[in-house]
């Protein structure tokens, strides 16, 4: 018994060494071996396996009925709705940030929708394929409304709470140096301690990703007394991703995500989607699968976007439900608005 235990461990260590080296060499991983697309695997399984975090306010959490919800979760549900006409045909895997990429490249999950920032190294050397961004996050700054601070220049000689060891601290000093503002950083090891210090008034501003600041603001004693500055100090585009070298599957995830945005642009919501059936507009007829072969060309039913919008809604609805006016956070659309409204969301044409 002990021999086996030891041998097993030795084998594990040896294999681990090999596994580490092959991982960087091949960018596909087992998920793409054999030539068959993951799309076929998912369709024959009848269920999508989606990697989420499971503990980020507004993005993924478990509600009282035991169902996963949040913006990240609804993107998974949209893909499941497109594939199976059932937003619940999805199994959520909780993944830690360190294991998310290996879980994806190892084929343990079909896609990730887990607050992952799109960066060049993740797209290339880590071997990921990023679908369109579903949430443009960025480093922001929270201040008290009555402090009179409106932009970063006002921080001259004032204290800012910041978590140490993150890129947040670096971004802040870079920004301030560029602006030539002499400020006083108050550094914390732990996020809870940083927000407590801000609450006690030890610093006049606190900086972190905007979505996190919004979530934290609602935990402060008087949330209305605090506001976020307009300034964005770093780019954090978050979106779903799949593994490299599997275009058929990546296309599905990519175009379902684009479809959510396009549906909002067309003004199609889960409530009025029936009215758009039989529309004279050929663009909408193609989008909902009444004309053309957009869906079948991709290996999906032709009405895949009709399914998505009926079950999940368009991007605007998802946003408002989880982060916007219908949620506790009441986060403005900002960058996450359609390009026609001054935001960054832009879907290529469906034709």
């Amino acid at each position, binding site marked *: 018994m*002990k021999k086996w*235990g030891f041998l097993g*461990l030795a084998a594990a260590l040896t*294999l681990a060494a090999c596994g580490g080296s092959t*991982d960087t060499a091949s960018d596909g991983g087992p*998920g793409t071996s054999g030539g068959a697309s993951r799309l076929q695997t998912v369709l024959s399984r009848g269920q999508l396996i989606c990697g989420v975090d499971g503990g980020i306010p507004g993005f993924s*959490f478990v509600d009282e009925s035991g169902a996963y919800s949040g913006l990240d979760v609804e993107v998974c549900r949209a893909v499941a709705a497109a594939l199976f006409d059932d937003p619940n045909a999805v199994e959520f895997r909780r993944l830690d940030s360190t294991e998310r990429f*290996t879980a994806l490249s190892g084929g343990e999950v079909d896609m990730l929708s887990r607050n992952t920032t799109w960066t060049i190294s993740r797209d290339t050397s880590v071997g990921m394929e990023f679908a369109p961004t579903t949430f443009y996050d960025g480093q922001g700054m929270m201040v008290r409304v009555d402090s009179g601070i409106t932009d970063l220049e006002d921080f001259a000689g004032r204290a800012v709470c910041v978590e140490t060891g993150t890129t947040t601290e670096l971004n802040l000093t870079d920004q301030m140096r560029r602006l030539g503002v002499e400020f006083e950083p108050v550094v914390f090891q732990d996020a809870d301690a940083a927000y407590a210090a801000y609450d006690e008034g030890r610093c006049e501003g606190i900086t972190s990703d905007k979505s996190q600041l919004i979530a934290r603001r609602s*935990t402060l004693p008087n949330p209305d007394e605090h506001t976020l500055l307009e300034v964005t100090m770093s780019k954090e585009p978050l979106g779903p991703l799949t593994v490299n070298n599997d275009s058929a599957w990546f296309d599905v995830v990519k175009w379902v995500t684009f479809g959510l945005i396009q549906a909002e642009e067309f003004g199609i919501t889960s409530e009025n989607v029936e009215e758009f059936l039989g529309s004279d507009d050929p663009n909408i007829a193609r989008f909902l699968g009444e004309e053309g072969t957009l869906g079948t060309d991709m290996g999906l039913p032709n009405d895949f976007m009709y399914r998505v919008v009926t079950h999940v809604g368009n991007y605007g609805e998802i946003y408002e439900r989880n982060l916007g006016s219908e949620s506790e*956070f009441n986060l403005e659309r900002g960058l996450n608005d359609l390009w026609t409204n001054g935001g960054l969301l832009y879907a290529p044409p469906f034709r």
Partner: protein
Amino acid sequence: MTTTTSGSFSAGPPAGAKIGPIAWARKHLFSDWFNSLLTLIIVSVLGFAGFRLITWAFIQAQWLLIPNNIGLLMSGTYPSNQYWRIWTLLGVVCTLAGLSWGIIARNLSRLFSPWVLGGIAVVSAFFVVFPATRPSSMILLPMVAIVAVMAWVGRLVGRKLAIAGQLISLLWFVSYFVALWLIGGGLGLRTISTNDWGGLVLTLFTAISGIALSFPLGMILALGRRSELPVVRWLATAYIELVRGVPLVALLFMGQVMIPLFLPEGARPDRVVRAIIALSLFSAAYLAENVRAGLQAVPRGQQEAAASLGLNTPLTLTLIVLPQALKIAIPAIVGQFISLFQDTTLLAIVGLAELLGMGRSVLANPAYLGRYAEMYLFLGIIYWVFCYAMSLGSRKLEQKLNTTH
């Protein structure tokens, strides 16, 4: 054990000494001005902290998140129409617990002493009053009754049947597989993926599996380390030293991250199984050292006596050495089990929704943002209850097995 000799001098109060709470307080708390000052400071600090805690707990804290999410915390995202399976499992466990209690206490003159009756009353009252358990009190109260009735049955059976002890051990062993079947499904029940196991059920399942697997493994490793065959000894020593030199988190991450890299899809063990294996392998190395300490405490004469009686090595081990060694090592072994139970919280880091991980998910619900203190206090109490129960059990076991005179 003989009492220390100093005890005999202070038997009975000296003549003229006052007894009673006031005299006690004067003697121990206010003997001179310095002690009085110290007492006042400590009492005021404790009183202030206690007052703050109580005002927080009863006025500021919003406890609603616990009863609203109690299903999640207890069994994770387990489908609610299958909850009856968890309840059935609890019923089985209560039955067995009651029977075991009755059998262990078969020689006591009274099974339901005032203390035990009081305990049952307190637990029942708690189930009725405590908001988190109130909706389920119609199920929880019969569970308490099952334990009590089964204790009575177990006592009768234990007096009639000599092998009742072995029988109940066998039943516990079988119940593990019944639990596996009830939770996981199959054989006529709907299969529930381990992905939906969670909360306290997952915590207990991983902890119990880890304990059950690591104990025999640890015992074998301990014997191996003391073996006279050099290869066996080296292998056992190397395993123990290797595993003790690696943090548990690293082992867990290796299980969750590396195994998928070098095993083909479909041939991979389940995530929960991987976690249990990592926990058991880790715990076994520590247990081995605890057992080895016990083995070394058994006098060499015992082994020689056994040899002179003509017992071979396996018989010497199983009849003479191990029973004594394990008895000596009980406190250390139970300590290791308690820490294994607490180590299951690390599974939250590798993405398993055990009690702590489920708590984190509930806290991410926008409706309960910022209710950290309530949630973690509640979780802390749950962990404490189970750990304290384990240490209480080990103390009873020690008393029962105590044969020193």
